[in-house]
């Protein structure tokens, strides 16, 4: 049984669908990252999961119990979760008292309280800030206080809304380290919102792509990146080579995609006439100075339009009827004397092409896709 399950959940505000048909299952102990651009509905979804708001329609189950069953159930479930806001608010009190506040509220007193708060302060690395007024702390430190307050309650579910969005890179890295250590130390289920796919990849077991109120895809970050569900997801996750085209032939799953007068071969179940886009990782493209006879199904002649070194690799931009980016080792680029304006041959395997939908799939009212 999933720890949290949302079924056909919609959230409508001011005549606009903020969330559309969210069917999400989160397992106990899972770290799930909701990724999506600003305004996609990530905070709205976290607030609904935390039972701070009620959905316009649909259900939220916690450990198999319908959270709308009664106000008492709702309150009980809420107490098993903790939410760290994107811009946390701290009390005009010391770091210690900020963390102790909610524990006192729950009846903890004396040495037990003191030991607990001291331990949590240590976990979040704020031992030197013990008596400091929390309002005088930096953004990263305030975020630590907020995380400390949340984990002090030993929640079953920790919800984090863009935990590093307003921080400088160093503070962001430290908060990521802290989240990572919480994941290791506690068996807490974590649902975090981030617009940073790489952060999701670093921290989460699974990422879910939320765009324009729709949960479009979920899986390991690697899978989402390698096999984006549609062009929109591909663009969001930063796939560099996305070529629009139409399937013009299909035989034994080997399809031909026509694009700007060129034919790309790929392995796909899409049918003739369907508008698709071909996604190719730059690492899967091989360059050669002469025409080679190889098993690669895709071979094009083009011209190098730009080169730039990226660490031990060289990023080569090529125009071959459509623009392509290839990544080759710097050593290969030097040995081949690659230069702007040079004629070049590009090859890649049919299996290196991920074919995905061109058009965004508009979700219908009764359609259910569990993620």
């Amino acid at each position, binding site marked *: 049984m999933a720890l949290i399950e949302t079924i056909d959940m919609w959230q409508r505000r001011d005549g606009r669908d903020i969330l559309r048909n969210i069917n999400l299952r989160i397992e106990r102990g899972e770290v799930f990252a909701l990724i999506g651009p600003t305004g996609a509905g990530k905070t709205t979804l976290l607030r609904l999961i935390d039972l701070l708001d009620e959905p316009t329609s649909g259900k939220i189950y916690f450990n198999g119990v319908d959270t709308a069953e009664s106000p008492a159930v709702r309150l009980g479930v809420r107490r098993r979760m903790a939410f760290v806001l994107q811009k946390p608010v701290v009390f005009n009190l010391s770091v210690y008292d900020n963390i102790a506040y909610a524990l006192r509220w729950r009846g903890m007193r004396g040495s037990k309280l003191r030991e607990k708060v001291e331990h949590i302060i240590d976990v979040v690395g704020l031992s030197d800030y013990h008596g400091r007024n929390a309002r005088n702390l930096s953004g990263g430190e305030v975020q630590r206080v907020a995380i400390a307050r949340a984990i002090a309650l030993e929640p079953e579910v920790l919800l984090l809304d863009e935990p590093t969005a307003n921080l400088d890179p160093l503070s962001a890295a430290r908060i990521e380290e802290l989240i990572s250590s919480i994941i290791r130390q506690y068996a807490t289920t974590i649902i975090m919102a981030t617009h940073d796919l790489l952060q999701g990849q670093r921290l989460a077991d699974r990422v879910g792509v939320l765009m324009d109120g729709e949960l479009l895809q979920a899986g390991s970050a690697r899978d989402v990146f390698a096999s984006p569900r549609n062009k929109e997801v591909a663009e969001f996750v930063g796939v560099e080579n996305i070529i629009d085209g139409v399937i013009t032939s299909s035989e*034994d*799953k*080997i399809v031909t995609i026509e694009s700007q007068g060129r034919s790309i*071969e790929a*392995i796909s179940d899409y049918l003739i006439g369907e508008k698709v886009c071909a996604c190719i990782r730059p*690492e*899967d493209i*091989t*360059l*050669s*100075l*002469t025409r*080679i*006879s*190889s*098993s*690669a*199904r895709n071979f094009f002649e083009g011209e190098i339009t730009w080169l730039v070194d990226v660490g031990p690799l060289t990023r080569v931009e090529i125009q071959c009827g459509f623009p392509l980016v*290839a*990544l*080759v*080792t710097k*050593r*290969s*680029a030097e*040995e*081949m004397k690659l230069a702007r304006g040079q004629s070049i041959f590009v090859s890649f*395997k*049919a*299996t290196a092409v991920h074919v995905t939908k061109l058009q965004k799939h508009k979700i219908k009212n009764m359609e259910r896709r569990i993620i």
Partner: protein
Amino acid sequence: MKISARNVIRGKVKKVVHGAVNSEVIISLSGGDEITSIITKISAQNLGLTEGKDVYAVIKASNVMIAID
């Protein structure tokens, strides 16, 4: 062959097993090791891959995984 792939390894086709869409090609290297490649059946046919044919296994550096005992 001026090619960007860092690994161009010469060998001989040991075996070709055709599937419905893809073919599995086993290449014997001079030291006795083997490399297995999956390519489309049509490519295997176009290249005329048969046992004993001299071929090159072309592998990009980014696709090589390294393991230790």
